[in-house]
């Protein structure tokens, strides 16, 4: 071996490992497509994406209910995670004394580390019970027929995506230049006015990126949703009760895949659901990266 050869071999190995993530991604897309192909070449894609009847036994595959289910639960989760997350990010970077930061930071990291199945168990036993018994009695005077549904799913998903919304928003807030804040104070504004009129607008692209990442997480979440959404093939039309149940892309894949015959049309349709999920997650990730890259150019933090 010549002296330069070792350096060359290492170089090649490092290049390959840097490419590995992209290669795995390519492999995943390839396999999803390959398995979905019998369905993709057969049926119409528009009917698949907009259809609202999913009946594999009758060869009817309308994924619209699952797409709607995913979007509705995610939207519900945002109602909780965005106000709470952004407020918490502002608190951490603008208001909190050091002691509070030192308690809150590890707490948020821990919240991010809790396995989704543990969230699911907690939601199934605690939140579903609260919705069915307590909220039911409060609103209708009687307990509800079921506590499962979009409210319970949105509540737990909202908590699950809080950490990512907080951490990205906090980076964005911290990237707002110091001079902006000082100019605002110099003009006589209060802290609250500065937050409202200077910091939040300045941090908006970064906050949006954090929210988009949160949306990606929520859409891709499986275990918690499958336990609390009720898994009924319909679009939730209410916030409470039996009409609030539904099914998402992830829970449909999870539940059907365990019994579907390999190679059947139903099997290919499930991979088409997986492909749909993949492209949604990919688009959301690229959108947030775009927003974050723009911010990185503007300032360093």
């Amino acid at each position, binding site marked *: 071996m010549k002296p330069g050869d*070792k*350096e060359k071999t290492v170089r090649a*190995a*490092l*290049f390959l*490992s*840097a*490419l*590995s*993530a*992209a290669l*795995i*991604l390519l*492999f*995943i897309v390839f*396999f*999803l497509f390959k398995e979905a192909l019998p369905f993709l070449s057969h049926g119409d894609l528009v009917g698949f994406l907009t259809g609202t009847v999913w009946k594999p036994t009758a060869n009817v595959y309308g994924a619209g209910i699952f797409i709607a289910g995913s979007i509705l639960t995610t939207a519900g989760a945002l109602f909780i995670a965005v106000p*709470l997350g952004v*407020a*918490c990010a502002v*608190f*951490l970077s603008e*208001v909190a004394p050091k002691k*509070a930061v030192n*308690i*809150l930071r590890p*707490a948020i*990291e*821990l*919240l991010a*580390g809790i*396995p*989704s*199945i*543990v*969230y699911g*168990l*907690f939601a*199934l*036993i*605690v939140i579903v019970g609260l919705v069915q018994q307590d909220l039911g009695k409060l609103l209708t005077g009687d307990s509800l027929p079921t506590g499962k549904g979009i409210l319970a799913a949105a509540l737990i998903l909202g*908590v699950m995506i*809080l950490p990512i919304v907080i951490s990205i928003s906090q980076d964005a807030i911290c990237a707002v230049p110091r001079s902006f804040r000082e100019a605002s104070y110099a003009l006589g504004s209060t*802290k*609250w006015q500065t937050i409202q009129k200077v910091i939040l607008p300045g941090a908006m692209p970064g906050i949006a990126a954090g929210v988009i*990442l949160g949306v990606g997480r929520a859409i*891709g*979440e*499986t*275990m918690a949703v*499958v*336990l609390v959404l009720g898994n009924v093939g319909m679009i939730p039309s209410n916030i409470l009760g039996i009409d609030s149940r539904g099914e998402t892309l*992830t829970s449909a894949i*999870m539940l059907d*895949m365990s019994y579907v015959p390999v190679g059947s049309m139903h099997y290919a349709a*499930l991979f088409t659901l997986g492909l749909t999920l993949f492209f949604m*997650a990919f688009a959301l*990730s*690229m959108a947030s*990266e775009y927003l974050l890259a723009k911010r990185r150019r503007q300032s360093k933090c």
Partner: protein
Amino acid sequence: MTLLWLSAGSILLILCSIVLYVVYRGSHDLGVEFVLGQPENIWLAGGMLPALIGTLYTVLIALLFATPLGIGAAVHLTQYTKEGRTTKLMRIGSDALNAIPSIVFGLFGLTLFLYYLRMKPSVFAAGLTLGFMILPTIIRTAEVAIKAVPWSEIEGSYALGATKLQTITGVILPTALPGIITGVILGLGRAAGETAPIIWLASFWPPITPLSPADPFNSLTTTLYFLTSEAQNEQYITRAFAVASLLLFMVLVLNYVARALNNRLSANIRR
């Protein structure tokens, strides 16, 4: 202003109520026997040892796969290239892989290992599936850790006549090590807590203690899922909470270690 304090307080409240409730409901079953004993009666009695071993074994395989690749990728991205079209592709690959829902990894692992490579559901298949999933986490944290190595140390090494490879192995990697380990621990925690990617690869019953990577296995998370979704009575739920407490405890310890290492890293940089 009060609202901001309230929002921070509510996050602490949410965390505490989840952790305390889970541990409280699980405390009945928790103990040495629960962690180190053999299970009986579809996990409803006895201990969780086979599932614990299965989880640790798959995570080990995942780390053996993802750690060298992730560090290699980070070294390449920081030391061997200028930002260009190729690095952009590599970064998009890593970011997109990071964004893929875990259930899609499950579909991929299922088709690749079981249907194409015709393997049995095994520790190896599950470990690699989890390894694909945590690769981006390790790449990104290793990249950040390497970028934090002071220029003066790298230039000092070159000034002493070291080659690029010597500088990487002698200066850059040792200095970045705490940060790299933090990333590996983050990946470890994520791999240990995931359910969806391995749901079709883990077996539920009978209990199996896997010896070779080609053996089938049980895992804590999939067992927890079955106990929860098939729950017929209170006993299932009590058990499920005990397993959840064990998972929470693991996450807690890992988080603490990662945090301690990270603090040491930032102390190093200041010095």
